[in-house]
C-alpha cells in the first residue's frame, strides 16, 4: 500500500472479494427481477459505469438475453452546487426509452445517499420508469437521506472523513477496494 502523508490506506477488498461481490449483486438483481428483457442497467458517472457493464455481462449469461446499459451523469442535479466548485460534467448516454421499464441504477459506493437522490432526479428528466432499483458494490453506511439499496455486494462500516475508493480495470475483470483513513485519529 502506498500511504500519502495525510492518509493511511487499507486494502478493504482484494480482486477475489471484488469479483465475488459483483457476482453477488448480479445474483440479487436476477432474484429481484424476472428474465423479461425489461431490465435496463444505468451506471452513475463515473464509478458506476464500468460496474454496470460488468453486471450486464453476468446477467446476459444467466438470462441468455441482451441487457442494455446506459450512463447517467448527475452533476447538474447535485444539491451542493452552491457550496463547491462546479463538478466536471460527464456524458449522459441512455440510448433507449426508459419509460415503463425497470431501471437498475448502479453505483460503486453508497454513502450519504445524495448521489442516488440526484440520480433519481436526473432519471426523471429522461422518462418515467415503471420501477427504479438501486444496486451498490460497497455500502459504507453514514446515510443522510432516507435511501436504501435494493442490491448490495458488501456492507462496510466506515467513519466520516474516511474515503472508500473502488478501482476497476477498464473491462471490469479485475479490481480492488481501498479504505483511506486520515492520519492522526
Amino acid at each position: 500500500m502506498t500511504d500519502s502523508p495525510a492518509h493511511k490506506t487499507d486494502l478493504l477488498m482484494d480482486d477475489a472479494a471484488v469479483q465475488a461481490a459483483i457476482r453477488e449483486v448480479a445474483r440479487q438483481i436476477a432474484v429481484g427481477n424476472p428474465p423479461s428483457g425489461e431490465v435496463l442497467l444505468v451506471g452513475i458517472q463515473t464509478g458506476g459505469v464500468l460496474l454496470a457493464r460488468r453486471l450486464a455481462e453476468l446477467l446476459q449469461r444467466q438470462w441468455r438475453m441482451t441487457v442494455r446499459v446506459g450512463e447517467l451523469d448527475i452533476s447538474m442535479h447535485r444539491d451542493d452546487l452552491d457550496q463547491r466548485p462546479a463538478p466536471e460534467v460527464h456524458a449522459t448516454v441512455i440510448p433507449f426509452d426508459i419509460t415503463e421499464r425497470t431501471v437498475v441504477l448502479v453505483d460503486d459506493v453508497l454513502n450519504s445517499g445524495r448521489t442516488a437522490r440526484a440520480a433519481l432526479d436526473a432519471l426523471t428528466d429522461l422518462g418515467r420508469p415503471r420501477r427504479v432499483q438501486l444496486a451498490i458494490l460497497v455500502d459504507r453506511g453514514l446515510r443522510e437521506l432516507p435511501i436504501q439499496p435494493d442490491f448490495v455486494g458488501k456492507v462496510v462500516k466506515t467513519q466520516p472523513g474516511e474515503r472508500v475508493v473502488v478501482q476497476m480495470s477498464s473491462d471490469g475483470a479485475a479490481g480492488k477496494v481501498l479504505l483511506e483513513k486520515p492520519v492522526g485519529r
Partner: protein
Amino acid sequence: MRWSRKDLLDLQSLSPEEITAILDTAREFKAVGGRAIKKVPPLRGRTVVNLFVEPSTRTRISFELAAVRLSADVINFTAEASSLKKGETLKDTAKNLQALRADFIIIRHSAAGAPHFLARVLDAHVVNAGDGAHEHPTQGLLDVFTMREHKGRIAGLKVTILGDILYSRVARSNIWALQKLGAEVTLCGPPTLVPPIFREMGCRVTANLDDAVADADVVNLLRIQHERQRQTMFPSLGEYTSLFGITRDRLKKMKPDVLIMHPGPINRGVEVESDVADGVHSVILEQVTNGLAVRMAALYLINGAHGGTPEEN
C-alpha cells in the same frame, strides 16, 4: 480540471485548459437541449440580470434562454428603460442590482473593459456579453465549439476570418481562442478594416480573398457593420461584395469540406450570397444552437467557483 474563476470576462486571460473545459462542458449541455425536458436545476433559486447597455437581441435572448434552462430567474435590463439615461453611473446601477441580490450580471456595453470594472466592484458573477471592440468571449467559444464539433480538433486547423475586423470583438475573441488551441488564423478584408497591426497577434493578414480561403478549413464571415459609419472605409457595398463576398463560384474554389460560419445577423448579398448562407457548407444556425450550450456551460462553471471541498461517495 477544477474551474476556479468567478467571472467570464475575456478569452485572452483563459488558459487552453480552461477553454477546453468550457467546450467539454458545453458538449453535455448541448445534449440536454436535445431532450424532451430541456431544463436542468443547477442554478435553481439564482437570479441572473441581463444588463444590456448596448442594444442586442440575439445575444440577450441566448443568455436569457441559457439561464432559464439552468432554472435561474432572469431579469432583462435595457439602457433605454433605465436610470443610466437619467445620469446614473454604471457602478451605481450595478450596485443597485446587487442590492436586489442578483447573483449574475451579464453585461453588454459599448466601452471596452466595462465588465472587468464591474467584476472588481461586485461580488456577483460577471459575464462579458460584448464590450466595445474588445471581446465577446461566448461568441468566440461558440465559434470554436462549432469548429471542433465538425473538424474534431482545433490544433492545426486553418481558419480565415473575413471582413470587418477592425472594430470586431468577435474577431478578437476568435483569434485568442483559436491561437491558444493551436489553429492558424488568417485575417482578410479591405486594408482599412484589417490593419497590419493584427500581425502582432500572430495572424496572417492579407487583402487577397482567393489567397486567404484557398486552403482554409473554416471561413468565418463577419458582418459589415453599416451602423458604424462604414462608408469611409471602402468605396461601396457593391465593391465590397465583388472583392470579398462569398459567392457560389468562390465556394467552388475552396476545400470541399470547408465550413462557412457567420455570427449573424447576415447581410444577405453583401458578405455572403443567399445560396451559400443556406447551403451545405453553412453552419450558421448550428452556431446559434451551440451558443446556447456554451452559455449554459459558462454559467454552470462560474456558479460553482466558491471554494469548498467536494463531498466523497
